[in-house]
């Protein structure tokens, strides 16, 4: 092994063969194959024609059959579904994060009475039964079944995000409040102009966690949206699978069209995504 693999670990001597490092790399590569294998298969399949897939599913694509992507884009009604997903995600996340900041700030500062109890109230939902059935009854009786507004309403609440924000706001010195107030800054303006820029890392974490949850949601659209024109992309893909299930090259292209933007986003926002999703995992 080259010495370069051991430089970070001073306990190894250059003259010794670093069996530990070799073993570690073997393990890491094994798992990497397990994770990249399905992705690679997806890419490979998406570039093949149906006959060549039927002949040998795993053979490397010899021709680059980009036609699959065009076909998937057109037949899967992608532009419409994508637009719906974007609208749902942006609208619900925006409403959520604005209301959440105004919930978290006075709780963190004790500017409202019983702020501790109010926070507990938000946490308690994590330990109560699922809200699935009554939520449906609520939207049904409000006439918001199969309605984009009703669908968005489902996602304007997220207690974990509130807890993250409260904890972060507590690290912002409260002397700042006093100083700003002395200068005549009002409550709303303080939160909007001074607090929000200061808590950007926590905001990013919460926004990313919440938005990814909405974007990837698959159960709610099958329950609440029956008209094709309202489908988000997740539901669209499942419908597409139902119709083109045996045509893997086109289906793979459709899946990839959705996977690539997510992967690129992931590489850029990795820090926030990881902290958001590991915190968001509390939701189970």
């Amino acid at each position, binding site marked *: 092994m080259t010495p370069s693999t051991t430089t970070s670990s001073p306990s190894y001597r250059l003259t010794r063969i670093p069996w530990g490092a070799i073993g570690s790399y073997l393990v890491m590569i094994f798992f990497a194959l397990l994770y990249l294998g399905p992705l690679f298969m997806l890419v490979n399949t998406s570039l093949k024609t149906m006959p060549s897939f039927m002949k040998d599913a795993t053979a490397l694509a010899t021709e680059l059959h980009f036609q699959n992507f065009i076909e998937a884009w057109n037949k899967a009604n992608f532009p419409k579904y994508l637009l719906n997903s974007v609208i749902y995600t942006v609208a619900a996340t925006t409403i959520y994060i604005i209301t959440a900041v105004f919930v978290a700030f006075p709780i963190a500062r004790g500017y409202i009475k019983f702020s501790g109890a109010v926070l507990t109230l938000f946490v308690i939902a994590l330990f109560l*039964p699922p809200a699935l059935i009554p939520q449906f009854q609520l939207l049904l009786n409000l006439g918001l079944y199969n309605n984009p507004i009703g669908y968005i309403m489902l996602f304007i609440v997220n207690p974990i995000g509130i807890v993250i924000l409260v904890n972060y706001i507590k690290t912002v010195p409260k002397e700042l409040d006093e100083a700003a107030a002395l200068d005549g800054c009002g409550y709303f303006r303080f939160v909007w102009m001074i607090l929000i820029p200061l808590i950007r890392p926590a905001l990013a974490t919460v926004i990313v966690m919440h938005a990814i949850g909405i974007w990837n949601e698959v159960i709610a659209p099958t329950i609440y949206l029956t008209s094709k024109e309202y489908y988000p992309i997740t539901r669209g893909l499942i419908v597409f699978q139902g119709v083109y299930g045996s045509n893997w090259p086109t289906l793979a292209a459709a899946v990839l069209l959705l*996977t690539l933007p997510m992967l690129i986003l992931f590489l850029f926002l990795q820090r926030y995504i990881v902290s958001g999703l590991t915190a968001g995992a509390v939701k*189970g």
Partner: protein
Amino acid sequence: MSYHFGRGWSKLIPYLLLLPGLLFYFLIALGPSIATAFYSFTDATGIKGAPVHWIGFENYREFLFMGRASVDNLEALKRTLIFSVAVTFIQFGLGLFVALIVNQNLKGSNIFRTIYFMPVILGVVIQGLMWSLFLYPLGGPAAKLLSLLGLRSEFLGGPPAQAFAWVIFIQIWANMGITMMIFLAGLQTIPSELYEAARIDGANTWQLFANVTWPLLTPSVNTNLLLNIIGSLQAWQLFLVLVGYRNGTQVLGYLIYATGFGQTSGSVTSSFRQGYAAAASIVLFLLVLVIGMTVQYYLQRREARILG
């Protein structure tokens, strides 16, 4: 704490601005969550305006004790427990193992970390479709690997027990990254001086793990165990994408969805037995609560013993 932004009526501004968030929360989350218990005692359907009657414990009696369906229900309950135990322990073990390996800061380990976390952001639909393709029975990669050993399998289309095992595998594949990241965060809080001191005392790698890493990792061990248990008891979305509502593979979460909203996702029909589904939700909830609290109790006792 004293309020600085004005006095008199303007002290009400924080309350006013808090109100929308609180109202949404009551309306969308807390209220419906509590109302689940109420619905479980009714014969509510998914039809708008249909009369709803109070029927006491009838849904529970039917769910647990009546006829063929209740046998299936108890099977699903058993399957939920098997799924949860398998996913919890394997995901916990692998997540810890991989975190320890990646945490050595070998060159490139950041890239591997990113790769293992990748499925988490892709969501169940993409995860499911990726694996449906990888497990393509007519000469897909997994089928080819098996044929090298002279074996054949229908994978997700095979016997229910087999399909079920594959969903367990994919569930772990998809979420191991979260477990790993939580362990990595825990590993980074262990001061390196402790390792150096132990090494000077002549500890070998196994002793380092058993006497330094494992005890000091207790907080992330607890977090991961609880998250895995609670999460896996409620997880069923991958079943929807990978195998559909198929006999011999159903878990409780899927059963609730199927009875409450019809097996096929379509328009509202009278088969939407929402009172019954609410009762099933309460059964699942109690299961999660009892198991979660028991585990939490033992974990806290263990933590007190180890960390003092």
